[in-house]
């Protein structure tokens, strides 16, 4: 089975993230890492490949330095990586991002496309549905366990009310939840091997996307203003001396919350 995994480079968790006031975009200049929940998608792809054979291809959109983050997923065991990197893609919103990824995925024509649960920088959890719509393929998201068979997939989807078990014929798109597995650490051999695995960087044009339909030019949303969050106001701190429960109740009642 050929599996494509969509992954994204995000600022490292230890970096103090900031938005550039001039461009109103996330400053991506500092230390970067692979989006943590994408690791679950990579892990799931590797497990399917180990059970059934096939190929795992990473597909990403981002700045050229994103190849460093892709190498980590290659070290985990993915076979090769395709990075769409283009100045014209900078400032893409959901629509442009979905176009670029769908373009690259179309060229790969994988049986199964996997996504992680959410992006750690944009807090979005919407991309797979947009890519599924563009590629006209069935989508199953928020999948906590996945069974892949030749020709079909079945996913257990976590919902507000419990679980839905959903099946779809291949080719299909699945977004996994971070509950699905525990991503492996790359082995030393994997890390060494990753350096020689094929990594391709392509432009928007290479994947059949008009520059005007991605990036800032193709965006249908815009950030207008940036400001600080409202202050939470004064804080009350208590040490429990046996009366804390009563004090909490009094404060809550005083604030008309009960």
């Amino acid at each position, binding site marked *: 089975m050929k599996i494509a995994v969509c992954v994204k480079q995000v600022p490292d968790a230890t970096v103090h993230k900031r938005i550039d006031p001039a461009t109103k975009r996330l400053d991506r200049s500092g230390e970067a890492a692979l989006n943590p929940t994408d690791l679950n998608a990579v892990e799931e792809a590797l497990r399917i490949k180990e059970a059934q054979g096939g190929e795992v291809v990473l597909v990403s959109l981002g700045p050229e330095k994103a190849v460093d983050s892709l190498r980590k997923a290659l070290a985990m065991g993915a076979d090769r990586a395709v990075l769409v990197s283009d100045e014209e893609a900078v400032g893409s919103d959901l629509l442009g991002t979905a176009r670029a990824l769908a373009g690259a995925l179309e060229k790969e024509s994988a049986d199964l496309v996997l996504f992680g649960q959410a992006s750690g920088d944009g807090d979005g959890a919407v991309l797979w549905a*947009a890519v599924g719509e563009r590629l006209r393929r069935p989508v199953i998201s928020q999948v906590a366990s996945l069974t892949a068979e030749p020709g079909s997939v079945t996913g257990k989807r976590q919902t*507000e009310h419990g679980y839905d078990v959903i099946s779809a014929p291949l080719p299909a798109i699945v977004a996994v939840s971070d509950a699905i597995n525990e991503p492996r650490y790359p082995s030393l051999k994997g890390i060494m091997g990753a350096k020689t695995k094929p990594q391709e960087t392509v432009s928007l044009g290479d994947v059949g996307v008009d520059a005007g339909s991605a990036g800032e030019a193709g965006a249908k949303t815009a950030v207008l203003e940036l400001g600080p969050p409202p202050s939470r106001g004064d804080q009350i701190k208590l040490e429990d001396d046996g009366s804390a429960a009563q004090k909490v109740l009094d404060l809550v009642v005083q604030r008309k*919350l009960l």
Partner: protein
Amino acid sequence: VTFLVFLEHYHGELEKGGLGVLGKAASLGDAVGVVLGEGAAGVAAGAGTFGASKAYACEAAELASPLPQPRVDALATLVEQVSPDAVLFGASVLSADIASGLATRLDAGLNWDLTDLAVKDGELVGTRPALGDTVIAEVGWKGSPKLGLIRSGTFDPVESGGSAEVETFETTFSDFSTLATLDEQTQEESSGPSIEDADIIVAGGRGLGSPEGFTMLEELAAALGGAVGATRAVVDAGWYPYSTQVGQTGKTVSPKLYIACGISGAIQHKVGMQGSGTIVAINKDPNAPIFDFCDIGVVGDLHQIVPKLTELVRSRG
């Protein structure tokens, strides 16, 4: 500004999330609601009570299961018919997929995780917290319709006392959108409101010590008429179901009162609950990060404080 608001229904009732969004939309302009699936026409009339001037319903068999892609077809049909300026959704696992698919189908802008909406100089603008709510962005759209996903718990439903005429509509389905099928549905038994709907959430983390600690939280939540939430750590450990997980890879909630019991306040949990009205934290570790962003912090043993608080709430009658 004219709005089309997607309303989810469950067990024959409209869900609170969508109704809250409907009320907000009605305060900004004309709002119509849409309900899809089995029994949609019956429940759609209820939208009038919460601000809809009209309600649309489609009961096509393809919409019987809670799957997003056929709903994109139905909403695309309705958007063409109604031409709203904006299409709004209360955030849920289902509606996020629908909104994203619809944005792509219509080549329309989608802003998500919105915590407020306003009309400025005739244009719709949204409020969108970013980077773990450390920055608040004002976001807009180019062209229309403008699609928005509203963070759950942001707007309370408001009973307007109005009524809405229900109009049913038909739609056709794309070949690919009916390929995914629902095989089985498991519903988690829960009493009281869901965490998306609750005004009060009592949440627990590792500091509870054991899965049995949740019994104590359930009692407090029941006394308060609230719901129980959990951190990722305890959900991963199997102490409590995923549907109650608050945080980055769970739900983002904003109840009026959030009582965090034995929760350290890691960033991944913080982003899911810091929009709450009043945050009470009970933790025995005075250095727990949660004490940096709570409103009322109690350093103490939750096993002493929580049952006492439950008793006090009950005795208020």
